[in-house]
């Protein structure tokens, strides 16, 4: 197991954002994290990532209990993420943005090595031609790719992707899904939060469904999409579930 959350709860005042979430993630898999808005998906990322210490429970990454450890320590251990709301370093160039990832990530590279890694990574995500541009001048789809490039340049063991497909058109989604599959092929374990159902169902090995902080289902994409609780809480429409299962087969 590269990552385990053991009974992780998170409360903000009276709001129970996460209630005893337990996830086991074997190395090399893609785990899809789905659920309606406000289900606690991003909060779970923030807990894994060290932004918030969990109110209860443990998070074990690479065999170490990391609950409450600062985000930069986790980055050094090989944890990288993208943000749902993109967070570009606006007044730095695209290249410099990605170099920050390479310099301060798992491998802690020097500047010239970081430049090479950043160059490669930018080619990989398809931003190679824009490396001199200021990050603030990119459009949304490009900023999402920039976030991905920054995370990848850190050479992570585990990558948390928070809605990398949101706001992209069909063509962009198809190419991003290919990119994600390719990242996994290179040996990176991935958790992805996603609302674009057909994409997440296709690419994930397993799916966890959250609803109001509760973990209501877990399993392969086809198991999850047949689960009555999931259909009720999230998909809403049984026919939609049938169509989705169809697409998985």
């Amino acid at each position, binding site marked *: 197991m590269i990552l385990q959350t053991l009974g992780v709860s998170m409360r903000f005042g009276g709001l129970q954002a996460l209630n005893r979430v337990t996830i086991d993630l074997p190395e090399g898999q893609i785990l899809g994290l789905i659920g309606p808005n406000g289900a606690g998906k991003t909060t779970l990322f923030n807990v894994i990532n060290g932004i918030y210490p969990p109110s209860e429970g443990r998070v074990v990454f690479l065999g170490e209990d990391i609950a409450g450890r600062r985000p930069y320590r986790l*980055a050094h251990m090989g944890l990288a*993420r993208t943000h749902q709301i993109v967070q*570009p370093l606006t007044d730095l160039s695209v290249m410099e943005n990605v170099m*920050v990832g390479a310099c*301060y990530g798992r491998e802690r590279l020097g500047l010239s090595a970081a430049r090479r890694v950043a160059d490669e990574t930018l080619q990989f995500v398809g931003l190679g031609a824009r490396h001199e541009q200021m990050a603030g001048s990119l459009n949304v789809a490009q900023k999402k790719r920039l976030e991905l490039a920054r995370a990848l340049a850190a050479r992570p063991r585990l990558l948390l992707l928070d809605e990398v497909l949101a706001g992209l058109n069909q063509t962009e989604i198809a190419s991003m899904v290919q990119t994600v599959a390719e990242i996994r092929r290179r040996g990176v374990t991935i958790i992805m939060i996603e609302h674009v159902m057909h994409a997440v169902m296709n690419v994930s090995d397993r799916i966890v469904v959250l609803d109001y902080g509760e973990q209501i289902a877990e399993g392969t994409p086809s198991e999850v999409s047949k689960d009555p609780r999931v259909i009720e809480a999230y998909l809403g429409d049984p026919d939609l579930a049938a169509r989705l299962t169809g697409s998985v087969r």
Partner: protein
Amino acid sequence: MTALRHPGLWLSLGVPALIGLWPIVTQNAANREVVFTILMSMVLASSLNIFLGYTGYVNFGSIVFFGLGGYVGFYLMSAQGVSLVPAILGGGTASGLLAFVLGRAILRLRGAYFALATIGVNEAARAFINNFVPFGGPIGMSLNFAVYTQYGGATHALWFAYRLLLILTLGVILVSFLVKTSRFGLGLQAIRENEDAAEVMGVVAPDAKTWAYVLSAIFPGMIGVLFFFKNGNVEPGDAFRLHASIETIVMVMLGGAGTVFGPLLGAGLYQRLRGLLLVSPIFKNVQLVVAGILLLLIILFVPAGVVGWLRQRFPRLRRVLE
């Protein structure tokens, strides 16, 4: 070191070096006094820029390092009989240590809260020195004229102090350039752009901010010693002038925060303007008002400063203007 081949470094070193050599070549004491003020502003502005420009934290109390370093160095010279160069090192070390301790305490604060804390630091330092008897309390300290004999008399001592200032100026510019083009500097700039995102990417923000704060304190502490050595006396009101901190911010913003050359240009332009205002009958009493208005106009209309604006407007200049 590929960084040393960057034309931006040679421009940033060359211009202050030429200005600084002018009084030495002409051997003119009046020129020396004018350029002393300009070089001193360049050191203060360039140091502040490492923290304000690269790291993005506004420091309204940068002069506290100048004052405290100056006091410690002055004490070493007047009470302990230490000579100028070790006293300068002592002043720089004291300021660096103060910044380290302060940084650990107040760098948890962000944005306006940090800025407010820095004002408090300046006032607290002034109040402390005012009541600290070994440093002369509110009266301050003065140098016995006899100390100048070890430098060959007062005239030679002043030229000696000036040459040291020129060396320190070039030193701070080199440090500023090396920080900006280093991995450490990239981390600082990531903090400036988005501290949370930088931490997620692995930048150890509390440490990086503290070291930037320490670096921005050392050189002001050193030139504080030079300044009060030249003056021959030191008192709390001269050492901890809050408005000097604000003038330094104006210089950095005017030239371009976050660039190496900007603060140098800003210091030169501001001191030139200040010189003109001080001799004008209308403005001589309100030159600080002009500084305030200038700061307001820069922030409203050219937030990138002169050098930042030029870099945005003419991308080709980026090769020369760092």
